[in-house]
């Protein structure tokens, strides 16, 4: 193997060569730089390959030919190989990216760049503390130089502030080093570590502690901890993005590794300080990033935060043990690759405001790159950060460090918040003018290449961490899961026309079900059918879209992949990974709506918040194990069980939009595209119910402080049903109305589950099936109408029954079913409901649900009346029936609904039997068409026939006596012997339930919305207050640093 020393030697040699290069060979300078960096990268890579494959073992290189302490030694082991590779590659691609800037500044700039990369590698490789100091100073000086590569007006002052603080740092570091040397007699890091326990008297050991504190705090300061980091942020903002990439990915990495080495010396006593500083930085950094509008400064804060998190992880090595490097490495590499990628990407854009990134809109590759980076930073599957976070949280929970766990998740949520808000800007904001992005792409391929490399690296890391995790968790690589691969393959097929992709998607879903349908028990079968076949059915509607529909299918299939993986998951990890996948997929789907930016954001935030609670719940339940079989939730130890239950239940309820957690749903479902609304409403909501079912099946009734949690659930469910329905009554927007109705319906289903008896569960399942069918159907119908009429405001429609008869039929059947009126299938749910509550011990929550029931009539009538009945408006006189492909699934749903109404046993009989093993009492008996419970009976076939016969007889009679009825037009109405003025003034539709609002409108005060708005406002205010710390003065920053040192000093309590 080539000695790793050449990484340093080659860089130095090349730097000198550049300096000595003759003037006429000037043009060679840039190739030489690239070649040197390429060689360095190759060297690291070859070592990484050799070390990882086991063909080489870690080596120590003695520089002066002798062993330490008499000479400096460098070490090349697996971590060093990974980190130097990361640094060198960042350097290489940044150099490529910097081409024009470097060529403009001449070869001295290139030399400085080489020195910087060399020094960063040196920090990683060296085992000598003073050598570390030297490399660090080299980095400082090189940074001072490279900052000036930027055209930014304030790069100069930023660089100076940086130098000021670096001076202070280096003073502390040097003092620390010399006293540490004095105490231990060596400068070698390993030597020091060995010497520390042998320190003779208390005085020496105390002196060493102090010296170590100075060294440690100095190196920690290199990680830009909050609040001593103003100087670094200015660099991030002002420097050339390619240099910021090095600064974030390279310098951060090197400094982290340096701190890691120091922790080796200091031993466990210093871990708490690392954790403390790290987590404070993580939370504060993310909080401060929240109000930022400058992209690079935001990335700076985010870098600070990420590195803080990794520092906290390093500080937790006492419990993380061998997994430290898996976790820290996962986080670090995700951070480095993503940040480098984002900084490079930022260089492609002209504007510096976050909203200026809308330039990327309509350009799939950069958007995909951004998505990749954002997902890596937020720790979404399948990227390394996901596994790292999972492991971290499990270890923390296993050791009872719950406050830290909460802070980690809180910070991560804020981070996801601003990243996804930013993504929303990209897709949904208007580009700030004539976008010059295309030109850049073709002009400067050397700037695009690094971004693409970062994307590739991100996915490669995803694979590698998947492999590592697979050995850790004893499961196959997540990235290789068939559904996920299928979904991801649509990324590659995105150039195909939409109908081809749609056929593929439908075929895939159906084939998956055909291949796996024998695997499911009766309960899962229902969900499997809804998720796969139901999904395929809603996808039929997608045929109406022409063109390529870029981005739709990867997102949709990601969601479906997540859902099928969810029902097939046996272990907590699989379950959670699937949960995250479906969340992410659905987020992208929802974001596609025209005005869905804020709603998609609140969706992803609530979902991720919920997901974090689920993760925490799983972690607490696992008690230190990396995962557990879902079934063993039943055996969670007593003191934890109710808490686990609570966390998981709240997590799942964010998805079912229980009251309090519901504010994301109306906007998200209403603003989604026509064929997306049925997916996210009819299908996706069931994922939350499935989670609750799994939870309740395993854990049953839990008590917390003497309160039965299922009882609390009952109340939540009842209030959800009531307020969901009530809110729906007052909507003017048809899709929002349906969305609120979904909240109410989910309340019913949740209520059934929370009853915790046989029929309650059966009722929940009836609602699952029914809600899928009718809500998908109604959303399609309303979506089709909205598409044709160009509005979703119901009062602007009216009288469409003649123009859109099929849609009318769908809505009619739908509302009869939703309202629970016999003979359609909604009645089954109501019947089971009454039987279920009779068997229950609770009384009072039912009252709320009874109140909720009839309210459904209000909004349902309004839905059908204001759209299809009443007065036809002039401009809608020529609208046509909804497109065939939107109507076709509706008609299938009508058939399904009627079938389910007549023979509910087809779907329910098996489940009823299956539920016997959990709730042996209170099942139904199915004899012929009749269904009998302990309390009552019901014969759907007979009902359908009787109602049908009576109806037909009366109808035939009316036809006979009224056969000559004269069809009239819309204004042929009795109008107090006058005539109506115009259709708009005659259609009674707006504020339809005004009297109702007078009576009960006070219940619809948006208290929950106000609450969550206040929470986000508080977060933003906190961030804004924090920003005042950073007044831009270099001296203040130096003072911050010293204050930081003093505060930490007293907190450490030396």
């Amino acid at each position: 193997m080539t000695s790793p020393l050449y990484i340093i030697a080659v860089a130095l040699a090349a730097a000198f060569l550049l300096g000595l290069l003759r003037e006429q060979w000037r043009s060679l300078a840039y190739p030489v730089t690239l070649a040197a960096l390429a060689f360095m990268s190759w060297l690291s890579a070859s070592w990484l390959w050799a070390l990882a494959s086991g063909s080489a073992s870690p080596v120590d290189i003695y520089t002066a030919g002798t062993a330490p302490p008499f000479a400096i030694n460098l070490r090349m082991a697996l971590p060093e190989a990974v980190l130097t590779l990361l640094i060198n590659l960042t350097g290489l691609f940044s150099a490529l990216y910097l081409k024009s800037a470097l060529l403009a500044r001449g070869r001295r700039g290139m030399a400085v760049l080489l020195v910087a990369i060399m020094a960063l590698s040196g920090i990683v490789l060296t085992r000598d503390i003073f050598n570390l100091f030297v490399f660090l100073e080299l980095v400082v000086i090189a940074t001072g130089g490279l900052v000036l590569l930027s055209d930014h007006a304030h790069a100069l002052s930023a660089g100076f502030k940086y130098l000021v603080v670096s001076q202070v740092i280096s003073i502390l570091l040097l003092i620390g080093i010399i006293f540490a040397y004095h105490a231990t007699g060596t400068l070698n890091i390993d030597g020091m570590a060995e010497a520390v326990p042998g320190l003779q008297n208390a005085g020496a050991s105390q002196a060493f502690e102090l010296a170590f504190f100075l060294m440690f705090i100095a190196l920690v300061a290199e990680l830009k901890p909050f609040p001593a980091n103003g100087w670094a942020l200015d660099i991030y903002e002002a420097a050339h993005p390619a240099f910021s990439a090095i600064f974030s990915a390279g310098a951060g990495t090197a400094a982290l590794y340096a701190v890691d080495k120091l922790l080796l010396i200091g031993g466990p006593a210093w871990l708490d300080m690392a954790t403390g500083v790290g987590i404070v930085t993580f939370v504060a950094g993310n909080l401060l990033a929240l109000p930022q509008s400058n992209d690079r400064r935001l990335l700076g804060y985010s870098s600070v935060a990420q590195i803080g998190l990794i520092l906290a992880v390093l500080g937790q090595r006492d419990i993380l043990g061998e997994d430290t490097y898996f976790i820290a490495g996962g986080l670090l590499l995700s951070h480095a690759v993503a940040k480098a990628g984002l900084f490079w990407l930022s260089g492609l854009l002209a504007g510096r405001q976050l909203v200026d990134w809308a330039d990327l809109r309509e350009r799939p590759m950069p958007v995909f790159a951004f998505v990749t980076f954002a997902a890596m930073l937020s720790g979404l599957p399948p990227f390394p950060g996901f596994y790292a976070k999972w492991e971290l949280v499990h270890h923390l929970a296993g050791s009872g460090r719950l406050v830290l766990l909460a802070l980690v998740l809180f910070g991560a949520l804020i981070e996801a918040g601003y990243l996804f808000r930013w993504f929303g800007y990209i897709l949904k904001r208007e580009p700030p003018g004539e976008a010059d992005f295309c030109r850049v792409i073709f002009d400067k391929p050397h700037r695009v290449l690094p971004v693409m490399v970062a994307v590739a690296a991100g996915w490669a890391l995803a694979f590698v961490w998947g492999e590592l995790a697979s050995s850790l968790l004893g499961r196959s690589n997540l990235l290789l899961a068939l559904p996920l691969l299928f979904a991801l393959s649509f990324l590659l097929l995105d150039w195909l026309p939409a109908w081809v992709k749609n056929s593929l998607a439908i075929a895939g879903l159906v084939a998956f079900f055909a291949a796996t349908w024998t695997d499911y028990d009766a309960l899962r079968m229902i969900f499997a059918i809804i998720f796969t076949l139901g999904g395929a059915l809603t996808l039929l509607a997608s045929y109406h879209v022409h063109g390529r529909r870029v981005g739709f299918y990867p997102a949709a299939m990601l969601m479906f992949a997540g859902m099928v993986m969810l029902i097939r998951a046996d272990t907590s990890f699989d379950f959670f990974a699937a949960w995250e996948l479906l969340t992410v997929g659905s987020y992208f789907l929802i974001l596609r709506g025209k005005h869905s930016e804020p709603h998609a954001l609140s969706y992803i935030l609530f979902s991720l918040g919920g997901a974090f609670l689920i993760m925490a719940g799983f972690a607490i339940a696992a008690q230190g194990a990396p995962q557990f079989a879902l079934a063993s939730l039943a055996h969670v130890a007593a003191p934890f069980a109710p808490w686990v239950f609570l966390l998981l239940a709240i997590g799942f309820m964010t998805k079912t939009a229980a009251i309090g957690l519901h504010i994301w749903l109306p906007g998200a479902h209403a603003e989604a595209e026509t064929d997306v609304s049925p997916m996210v409403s009819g299908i996706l909501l069931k994922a939350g119910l499935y989670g609750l079912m799994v939870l309740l099946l395993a854990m049953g009734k839990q008590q917390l402080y003497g309160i039965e949690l299922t009882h609390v659930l009952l109340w939540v469910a009842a209030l959800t049903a009531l307020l969901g329905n009530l809110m729906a009554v007052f909507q003017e927007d048809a899709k929002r109305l349906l969305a609120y109705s979904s909240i109410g319906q989910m309340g019913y289903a949740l209520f059934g589950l929370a009853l915790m008896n046989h029929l309650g569960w059966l009722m929940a399942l009836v609602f699952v099936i029914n809600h899928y069918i009718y809500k998908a159907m109604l959303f399609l119908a309303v979506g089709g109408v909205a598409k044709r009429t160009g509005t979703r405001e119901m009062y602007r429609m009216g009288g469409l029954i003649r123009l859109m008869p099929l849609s009318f039929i769908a809505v009619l059947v739908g509302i009869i079913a939703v309202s629970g009126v016999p003979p359609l299938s909604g009645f089954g749910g109501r019947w089971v409901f009454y039987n279920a509550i009779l068997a229950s011990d609770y009384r009072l929550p039912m009252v709320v649900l009874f109140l909720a029931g009839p309210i459904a009539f209000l909004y349902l009538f309004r839905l059908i009346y204001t759209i299809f009945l009443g007065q036809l408006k002039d401009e809608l006189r020529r609208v046509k029936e909804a497109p065939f492909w939107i109507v076709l699934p509706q008609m299938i749903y009508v058939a399904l609904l009627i079938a389910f109404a007549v023979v509910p046993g087809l779907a329910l009989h098996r489940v009823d039997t299956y539920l016997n093993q959990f709730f042996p009492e209170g099942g139904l008996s199915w004899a012929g068409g009749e269904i009998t419970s302990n309390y009552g009976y019901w014969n759907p076939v007979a009902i359908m026939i009787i109602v049908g016969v009576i109806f037909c007889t009366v109808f035939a009679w009316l036809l006979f006596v009224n056969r000559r009825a004269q069809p009239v037009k819309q204004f042929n109405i009795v109008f107090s012997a006058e005539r109506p003025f115009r259709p708009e003034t005659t259609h009674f539709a707006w504020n339809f339930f005004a009297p109702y609002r007078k009576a009960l409108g006070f219940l619809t005060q948006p208290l929950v919305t106000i609450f969550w708005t206040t929470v986000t406002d508080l977060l933003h205010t906190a961030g804004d207050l924090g920003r005042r710390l950073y007044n831009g003065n270099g001296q203040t920053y130096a003072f911050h640093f010293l204050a930081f040192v003093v505060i930490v000093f007293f907190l450490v309590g030396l």
Partner: protein
Amino acid sequence: MKPELMKRMVKGPDGVEFEVEPMRDYYCDAPPTVQHGAYIKIVEDFFNWARSQSLWILGFGTGCGAIEMRPLMTPRFDAYRYGIQWRPTPRQANLLVISGYLSVKTLKRAIRAYEQMQNPKYVVGLGSCTINGGMYWDSYNTIKCLDQYLPVDLYITGCMPRPEALLAGFEDLKKLIRAGQAEGANQYAERFDWYKANQKQVIHDWDMPDYNW
């Protein structure tokens, strides 16, 4: 013609412009037709008996004579015992009582209300004003002879007629109905053009279709 009834161009949600003609698009333009009774006489007689026993008066007071209708509901006169009721909508009424003088303005409303009732339907002219204009015989603004504009089945004279006279008149109307002679609606359909011409002669702001279904 009022602006809201004029032809206009509107733009559909798909951006295509097209013409809306309110009189054609909002109103049914079919003319009334003569309706024959049941084919079997005894059935028609039975129906006529029922019609006579179920006179539903449109609650529409056109003039001062309307004040004489109210006492009919009181215990003293109690018209209900004769199967007479008041309905608030012409759709459900079959007897239009023109109660007193009829101004030209009200005539339009009366015509509309009458046409919106279902066949068979009856018109009773109450008071002298409906017969010859009464004390308003030379008014520029009242119509003089109601049966030029609507097919009147029965006049009840007086200025005003007492409620007793009204009851007597309704009893007479019942006899006409039972005899199958109260076919005003068919008469109106048969002589539709004549009625329309008369109506349009006095009503100058004719802003409705020829027949108000």
